[in-house]
């Protein structure tokens, strides 16, 4: 048990991921204000992006994988460990775009609800329907 706790404490960004994830989930489920629910969802998605970036980290000052003349001349000097894996970053970019699109659609929806029912609180809106 204690070695698990020690391993966890050595990786602070993973603890940050868990804390943010749970915060986002809590904010999303317990608030009745629609904008606050959206903030919760945004926090949830951002925490997953934090995890994605964390697993793409290399410890010893790895550089960007760009092919230069030096590499073309002597391809045997390319050591994979010296270059950052670009895939997690690409996945993060795509997930950010998805997040922004979701935020856009959800804000437009909330604006339409507000224009129609005059309130941002879910319970009030449900009452005004009946």
């Amino acid at each position, binding site marked *: 048990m204690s070695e698990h706790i020690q391993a966890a404490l050595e990786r602070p960004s993973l603890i940050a991921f868990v804390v943010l994830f749970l915060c986002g989930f809590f904010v999303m489920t317990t608030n009745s204000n629609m904008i606050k629910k959206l903030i919760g969802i945004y926090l949830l998605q951002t925490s997953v992006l934090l995890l994605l970036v964390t697993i793409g980290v290399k410890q010893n000052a790895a550089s*960007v994988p760009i092919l230069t003349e030096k590499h073309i001349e002597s391809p045997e000097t390319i050591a994979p460990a010296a270059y950052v894996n670009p895939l997690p970053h690409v996945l993060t*970019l795509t997930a950010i775009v998805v997040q922004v699109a979701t935020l*856009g659609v959800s*804000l*437009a929806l909330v*604006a339409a609800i507000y224009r129609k029912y005059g309130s941002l609180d879910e319970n009030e809106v449900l009452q005004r329907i009946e």
Partner: protein
Amino acid sequence: MIEAHDSLIVRSAGKLLIPLSQLFALYVLFFGQYGPGGGFAGGVILGTSFLLAVLVLGPQAPPCRLAHQLEHGDGVGLMIFVGVGGLCLIGGGTFLDYSNLQIPGWNDEERRSLGIVLTQIGVAADIAVTALSIVFSLGQHHSQEASHE
């Protein structure tokens, strides 16, 4: 109803910063070939510069009228992207296989480089228009637009 900002300082600073930020957006877009940046970041900065224009200079200023015209160009960025991919299809390869772009006299790497730049331009255009349309749809501009039609 958004009006132009009252303070002269903000308006003058806006007039200076907005063209600078658009230039920076183009720089980020083209620098994406060699470092961090690329279509997504460039498009976001471009869209934000137009939004800054709307917020600071008011909806009647020329940049804002340009922004409203741009809002109609919804699919243009994606059309560029899909167009480039389709051209690669026509050239005989798989989708987005830039080495099949039929440009005489260029070798493989130059074609791929051109293909990626065109794709990123399409992405930037699309994201700028999307950012604009998201914010315009939330505000009163939308109801004004609808009443004009």
